[in-house]
Structures are given as C-alpha cells and as structure tokens.
C-alpha cells in the first residue's frame, strides 16, 4: 500500500517540476520526510549522491524509494518521477505544429517561465539551508560558488573538491 503512495507522491512531484527539478525540491523534502521514508539529512545526502552521479538530479526519487521499499520502491519512485510528464510532452510534441501559433499557448509559455524560475530559487534556498549549518560548510559553499561563477572548473570537479575539503576538515 505504501508502494502506491510512494509512486503517487513522486508522480505528483513530477507535476511540480516547473522549469527544472529544483522547483520540486522544497515540497519533495516536506513529503518524503513527512511520510517517514527518509530523514531530512538522508534526503540531502541522497540529493548530493544524485549530483555526484550523471543524469537528472531528480533520480533522487530512486534513492528515497530504495530506502523505503528496496529495488521495487526505487523503480516505482523513478517511474512516478519521470514518466507522467514524458507522456504528456510526447503527446503534445505530436500536435505541436498546429498548436504553437495560437496566442494562449504562447502566453502560457511566457507566464510559466518566471514561475518556474521563482520555484528554482526557492529550491536553491532549501538545498542551501539543509547543507550549510556552520562556518566550514558556509565557506565550502561560497568557494564553490566563486569557482563556478568564474568557470574555473567544471561543476562535477567542484563538487568532488568540496567533498575532499569536507573530508580534510572532518565535517
């Protein structure tokens, strides 16, 4: 029964990804911790593992599903997380040539963009609030931000370096 709730919850999270997965992070954290599938610390660790591995970060759904119900849980959570919107967008892609010239779909696209961005900023805020809890973590975050803003190193290397610094500091 909980498996159904798990799949349904992530199908719901799928619909909350507006302009990128980050927009669903605040609500996802609330729900998965609320259901007792993971603790909020495990959730942040899972999100970090999803960043360290290739592919979409929303694969964190599989991490949560695995913790709750093993491999079937991981599979169902991932299906819920990715499939619903894929079907919708696939159906629309087949009709798109006819729809895109109308004024309302165009207005809808322009109205949704800033909404998605606002949710993404909120998601960044949630990730930061969970990951930064003292001076060393704040310094690592600031350093990573600087290195990325200057494009000195690719993101994957920056994350690994942050991990090495954390290990050296014994966080």
């Amino acid at each position: 029964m909980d498996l159904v709730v798990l799949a349904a919850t992530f199908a719901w999270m799928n619909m909350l990804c507006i302009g990128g997965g980050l927009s669903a992070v605040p609500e996802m954290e609330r729900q998965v911790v609320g259901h007792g599938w993971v603790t909020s610390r495990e959730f942040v660790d899972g999100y970090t593992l999803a960043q360290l591995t290739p592919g979409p970060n929303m694969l964190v759904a599989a991490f949560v599903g695995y913790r709750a119900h093993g491999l079937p849980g991981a599979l169902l959570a991932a299906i819920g997380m990715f499939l619903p919107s894929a079907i919708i967008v696939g159906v629309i892609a087949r009709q798109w040539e006819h729809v895109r010239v109308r004024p309302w779909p165009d207005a809808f696209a322009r109205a949704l963009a800033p909404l998605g961005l606002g949710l993404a900023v909120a998601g960044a805020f949630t990730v930061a609030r969970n990951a930064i809890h003292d001076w060393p973590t704040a310094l690592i975050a600031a350093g990573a931000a600087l290195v990325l803003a200057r494009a000195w190193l690719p993101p994957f290397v920056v994350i690994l370096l942050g991990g090495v610094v954390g290990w050296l500091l014994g966080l």
Partner: protein
Amino acid sequence: MQPTLAQVLRAFLYLGATSFGGGRTAYVYEILVRRRRWIPTPEFLEDLTLSQMIPGPNVTNLAVVVGHRLAGLAGSVIAFGAVLVPGAVALMLMTVLYFQTGIPSSAQALIRGGAAAVAGLVVVMTLRLAATLRDWRSIAVVVITFVAVGVLRLNTVAAVLVVGGVSLWLHRPRA
C-alpha cells in the same frame, strides 16, 4: 540530417552517462546541435521551450521532444530511456553502498562537503538565470514565488495556482 535509431540511442546514452551537475540543457545543445548537427538551432530552441512549458524534469522532457523530432515515437521512447539508465544504475550502486554497508564517517564528511559545494553551485546557477530577467512582471513573479515557497514554506501547489494565475493574467495575449 536524419539519424538512425541506433545513433539516437548512442547519443542519448552518452548524454545520460556524461552529464554532471547543472546546465544539462546546454550540454544537450552542445552534443546534438553543435557537434552532431542533427537539429538547427531555432528548432532546438522551440523544443526547449515546449519541454519547459510542460511540468516535469527538464532533461527527460527535452529527450522526449528531441527524440520525437529525430525519429518519431520510437525516437522519443529510446531517448527517454537512454538518458535515464546510466545515471540510474550509477546512483543505485551508490545508494546501496550508502544504506547497506553504511558509509564510514570519513565518507560522511566527504558527502557533507560535497553537499555544501552543491549548495554553492545551485545558488549561483539559479541567480545567473534570474539575472537574465528584464521586465518588471517577470521579476515580480519570481520574487513572490520565492518568498512564498522558499521563505514562508507555503504549500507549493497553492502558491503555483495563485501566482500562476496572476502571472498568466500579466502575460495575457494583447489584442
């Protein structure tokens, strides 16, 4: 140029296995448009808007739309699966390690440090995107959404319905 299904499969497996961190749509652009020249830029931008207009994770949505453009329904299905599988396998291995064997405290420190770095990255990337906004309506929608969901931690769905309605009104078609 119309790629075969096998070429679509290979390209999306490659994308799925090598895209780390943020900015994945830029990476898709680099691989499919600039390097392989499968899609002209204007068509790619249209696919990008369509995939972002629909809720759901960006990269899988984009894979479905671009896969459809390249090879129809079969292209969609193959692109969707191929972009997910490499990362899903890698993450499952890490997840099993994390929960089963338990991660030693030194690795915990590694993850905490990595998480702090991730926080820095996502803040920079989202602020960089937000900095591209110019018109007051979009800026107002971004700020209100952030305060409602991020700071006040209001229910996301309620916030999306209310702010989305206002945003749609602000961006309504002008006769």
